[in-house]
């Protein structure tokens, strides 16, 4: 045992630490750097599902029934498998419509019904009270174990004002108030609280694992040891499972119950849906949370069995093994840690649960009633935010006191685990209305209402009342014999259905009646227009986004009224902000000039819903606006418009995308055309320039001679010579331009015969002999021994060779010039090389020289007498016969021009003449371009 001050002090210190974490979380959130914007924090906060029950109840259950503690955790795991689909839809809906609680969700779905929301709230309050009591009980039991000598029984204080648990409850309520109701956040988010919950989840896990490890490996020799000893002890062996008597029905119903509760419990809904920061976090949290559950449960069975082995059954309360085992072994620090862990679990649950329930109570029970009174009602003025906060705080205390009350009067007789399951069964009643509402458009308010009422009634009768009776506050006669002796109305064997445990029995009756009533009544009379519109928005939440969402509202409203209304509930700052945004959307300069449309009204309603719940928000907005009642046709018409709008906008998007594509294609084509145009322009201007230059000389010379009849003969001779030369140049140019044009346009005439290429080359060399001799250059021709026969136009090929030779002659150095001509054959075709030892062509111009009118920009000032068309024409000719012509970049000793021709030169020209290749000697290398 530990001293009271130590235990109390440690507890208090821990709570302060939690508070510090929460404050840090709030501070970071205010700065915009949220700590909880993280999938791991989100997952850990979901672990608020593990309450003091995990610490004490599970162990107790394991000690008495073996693995029967597991379904409570298997259920959530299975539920989370579907979470990414189902819970995500809930997140989407909640975010779109500012849903702040499960009551709000259900009420909003069925036509924003205040009555339905109120009913859900009532059921929640009644259902959750036992659960809160359970936490208080766990803490008080734990406290007793820690501070009293081992084995001593804690005596329950008879007077409530003496009961330390009461003060603990009050302290916890105060703590919660500070945690969660500092200010009214219209999104109902409590970032600090979530941070603290995530933190305490870690503490919970670590403490439990610590105790587990200690018991398994400290007190025993590992798990195998424990189980071996259990098998040896005959009274304990059945705990490990007995196939014959395994109640599969109960197993299934427990699993199902836990599956539903992990979403429907107020604290779970609050954490999972309302406090969610980012939908995407759900993806990771959906498996991290079950992993957490697995981890925290690993040592439950060992601890329980270990406790039974050590203490024997019947002496120590098994539910407190997690504390008593370390205590008995003198591990006081570990025991304190475990107690802190259990305390942590309990406080976490209570805080979140009471915050969630208090907001429900405020928005869905109190507010609707208040708004009906004259004082706070429609025509009242004044800021209601402070009032709302006060109502919430009162609700927290109220719920806590109710919990204490249940604990005091009814908690003694019942084991913890059973109390918890009663609460589970209560919230399970929401399942048909909630999930049906999300996936079935046909669910109506009447159906949901009927289902909830009948389910709740049966729950009360089959579970709640028996539990109170078993605690001694009601005569048990009606349990054993049925009310007024009517046997088949026995609460735990209704209509004679026996053979089930009481939980399965209750669950069966309440859920089936609930579901049946829901379906039957929904089908009996279809949904009203308001319900239809809400149904559409909920069921199709994934398909809709803000812009294409239909707004089911028709009417008129004044902007001042709306602004005043919003200010009352949301505060002036937020109201202003909202309206200014709307003014921007409508394109109006000031708020006062806004003409409220359906969108604005909807935004106002959503903003209000965050503060007072959807149902009350609806009521308030309806009170200031002049609304047209929507009939079903109106709803369908609006929906139709919205659908058409959406289709239209999709179409528009597609059109604009294709338009963009067309435009860019057009632009590309235009650019290409322009460059071609420019090329043509350049060509034209080059041609005109080349034509006009010789013409200028000719004309000038002729005019000069004409003006001066008595010009000296020598001078006259010179001028005439120039005229002749320039005329030749001109006609050469004209011929070449026409030639090129003909070849390019395909109108050239080709006279193809079989030619011996070697002979052709030799002839060309002969023709240019004089030219080279004048330049003092040596020409060498290397030919293969056998004839090289091709089919081509000999004149054209000669043209090419002459062009290359004259180029070589132009650039060969003045002394020691050498020109080498080589002919090679290979399997592919023939190759002719003409190289000189002149200055060569710079690498940058290797491609350009084959362009029209490109002239080598010789820096020596020497301008070659050429037309600039020789090489382009040569290229056209060579390519016409399927060959290639290029300048060898690797040759540095001058310019080396190479052209090759395939054996089958006629292939490119389209003629069917096929030439059998001459035997190839093939000592040429394939060309390197």
């Amino acid at each position: 045992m530990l001293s009271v001050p130590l235990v109390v002090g440690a507890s208090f210190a821990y709570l302060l630490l939690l508070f510090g974490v929460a404050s840090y979380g709030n501070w970071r959130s205010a700065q915009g750097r949220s700590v909880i914007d993280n999938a791991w924090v989100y997952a850990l906060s979901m672990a608020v599902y593990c309450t003091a029950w995990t610490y004490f109840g599970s162990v107790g259950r394991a000690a008495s029934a073996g693995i029967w503690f597991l379904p409570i955790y298997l259920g959530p795991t299975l539920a989370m498998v579907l979470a990414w689909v189902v819970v995500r839809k809930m997140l989407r809906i909640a975010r779109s419509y500012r849903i702040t609680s499960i009551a709000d969700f259900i009420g909003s779905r069925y036509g924003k019904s205040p009555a339905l929301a109120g009913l859900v709230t009532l059921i929640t309050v009644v259902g959750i009270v036992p659960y809160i009591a359970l936490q208080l009980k766990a803490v008080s039991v734990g406290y007793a174990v820690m501070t009293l000598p081992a084995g001593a029984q804690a005596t329950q204080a008879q007077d409530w004002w003496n009961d330390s648990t009461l003060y603990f409850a009050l302290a916890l309520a105060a703590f919660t108030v500070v945690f969660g109701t500092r200010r009214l956040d219209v999104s109902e988010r409590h970032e600090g609280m979530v941070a603290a919950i995530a933190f305490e989840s870690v503490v919970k896990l670590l403490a439990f694992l610590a105790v587990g490890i200690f018991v398994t490996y400290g007190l025993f020799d590992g798990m195998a040891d424990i189980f071996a000893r259990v098998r040896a002890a005959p009274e304990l062996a059945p705990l490990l499972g007995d196939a014959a008597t395994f109640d599969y029905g109960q197993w299934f119903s427990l699993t199902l119950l836990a599956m539903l509760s992990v979403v429907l419990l107020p604290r779970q809904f609050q954490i999972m849906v309302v406090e969610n920061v980012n939908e995407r976090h759900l993806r990771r949290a959906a498996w991290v949370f079950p992993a957490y559950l697995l981890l925290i449960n690993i040592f439950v069975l060992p601890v329980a069995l270990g406790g039974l082995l050590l203490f024997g059954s019947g002496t120590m309360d098994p539910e407190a093994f997690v504390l008593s085992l370390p205590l008995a072994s003198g591990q006081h620090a570990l025991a304190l840690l475990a107690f802190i862990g259990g305390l942590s679990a309990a406080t976490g649950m209570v805080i979140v649960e009471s915050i969630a329930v208090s907001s429900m109570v405020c928005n869905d029970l109190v507010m609707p009633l208040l708004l009906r009174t004259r004082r706070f009602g429609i025509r009242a003025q004044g800021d209601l935010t402070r009032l709302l906060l006060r109502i919430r705080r009162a609700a927290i205390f109220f719920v806590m006191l109710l919990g204490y009350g249940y604990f005091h009067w009814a908690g003694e007789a019942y084991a913890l685990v059973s109390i918890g399951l009663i609460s589970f069964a209560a919230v399970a009643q929401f399942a048909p209305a909630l999930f049906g509402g999300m996936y079935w458009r046909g669910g109506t308010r009447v159906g949901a209402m009927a289902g909830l009422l009948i389910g709740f009634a049966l729950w009360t009768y089959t579970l709640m009342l028996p539990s109170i009776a078993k605690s001694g506050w009601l005569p048990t006669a009606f349990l054993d014999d049925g009310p007024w002796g009517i046997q088949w109305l026995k609460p735990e064997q209704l209509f004679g259905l026996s053979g089930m445990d009481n939980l399965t029995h209750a669950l069966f009756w309440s859920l089936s009646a609930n579901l049946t009533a829901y379906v039957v009544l929904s089908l009996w009379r279809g949904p009203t227009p308001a319900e239809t519109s809400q149904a559409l928005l909920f069921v199709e939440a994934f398909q809709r986004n803000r812009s294409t969402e239909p707004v089911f509202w028709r009417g008129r409203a004044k902007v001042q009224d709306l602004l005043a209304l919003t200010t009352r509930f949301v505060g002036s700052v937020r109201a202003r902000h909202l309206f200014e945004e709307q003014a921007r959307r409508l394109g109006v300069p000031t708020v006062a000039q806004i003409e409220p449309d359906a969108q604005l009204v909807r935004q106002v309603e959503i903003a209000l819903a965050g503060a007072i719940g959807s149902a009350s928000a609806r009521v308030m907005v309806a009170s200031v606006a002049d609304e047209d009642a929507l009939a079903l046709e109106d709803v369908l018409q609006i929906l139709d418009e919205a659908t058409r709008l959406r289709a239209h906008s999709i179409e528009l998007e597609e059109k604009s995308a294709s338009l963009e594509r067309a435009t860019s294609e057009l632009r590309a084509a235009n650019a290409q055309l322009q460059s071609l145009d420019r090329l043509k322009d350049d060509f034209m201007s080059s041609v005109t320039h080349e034509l006009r230059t010789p013409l200028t000389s000719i004309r000038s010379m002729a005019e000069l001679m004409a003006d001066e009849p008595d010009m000296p003969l020598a001078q006259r001779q010179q001028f005439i010579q120039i005229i002749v030369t320039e005329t030749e140049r001109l006609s050469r140019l004209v011929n070449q331009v026409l030639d090129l044009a003909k070849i390019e346009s395909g109108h050239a005439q080709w006279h193809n015969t079989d030619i011996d290429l070697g002979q052709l080359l030799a002839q060309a060399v002969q023709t240019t002999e004089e030219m080279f001799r004048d330049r003092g250059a040596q020409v060498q021709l290397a030919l293969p021994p056998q004839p090289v026969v091709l089919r081509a136009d000999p004149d054209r090929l000669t043209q090419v060779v002459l062009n290359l030779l004259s180029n070589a002659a132009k650039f060969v150095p003045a002394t020691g010039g050498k020109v080498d001509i080589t002919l090679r054959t290979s399997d592919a075709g023939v190759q002719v090389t003409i190289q000189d030892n002149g200055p060569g062509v710079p690498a940058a111009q290797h491609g350009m020289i084959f362009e029209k009118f490109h002239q080598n920009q010789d820096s020596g000032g020497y301008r070659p007498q050429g037309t600039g068309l020789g090489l382009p024409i040569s290229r056209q000719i060579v390519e016409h016969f399927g060959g290639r012509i290029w300048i060898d970049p690797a040759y540095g000793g001058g310019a080396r021009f190479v052209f090759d021709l395939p054996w089958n030169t006629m292939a490119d020209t389209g003629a069917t003449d096929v030439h059998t290749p001459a035997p190839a000697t093939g000592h040429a290398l394939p060309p390197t371009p």
Partner: protein
Amino acid sequence: MHRTRGSQRLLALFFAGMMVLNYPLLALWDPQASLFGLPLFPLALFGLWAILIATMAWLLEHSGD
């Protein structure tokens, strides 16, 4: 419901889990047997549980949903 492949896989996993962790498949594990000195039934339960979580994790982390 979101009719994508990812969500269909999750639905399938859900039903598989329900079947594996309930009657009748659960009855297949003999409570008297043991593996590594640990009783088979609890071990199987935890094992299946772990496999379920791992499969879920793999499906979720790899879905493009």
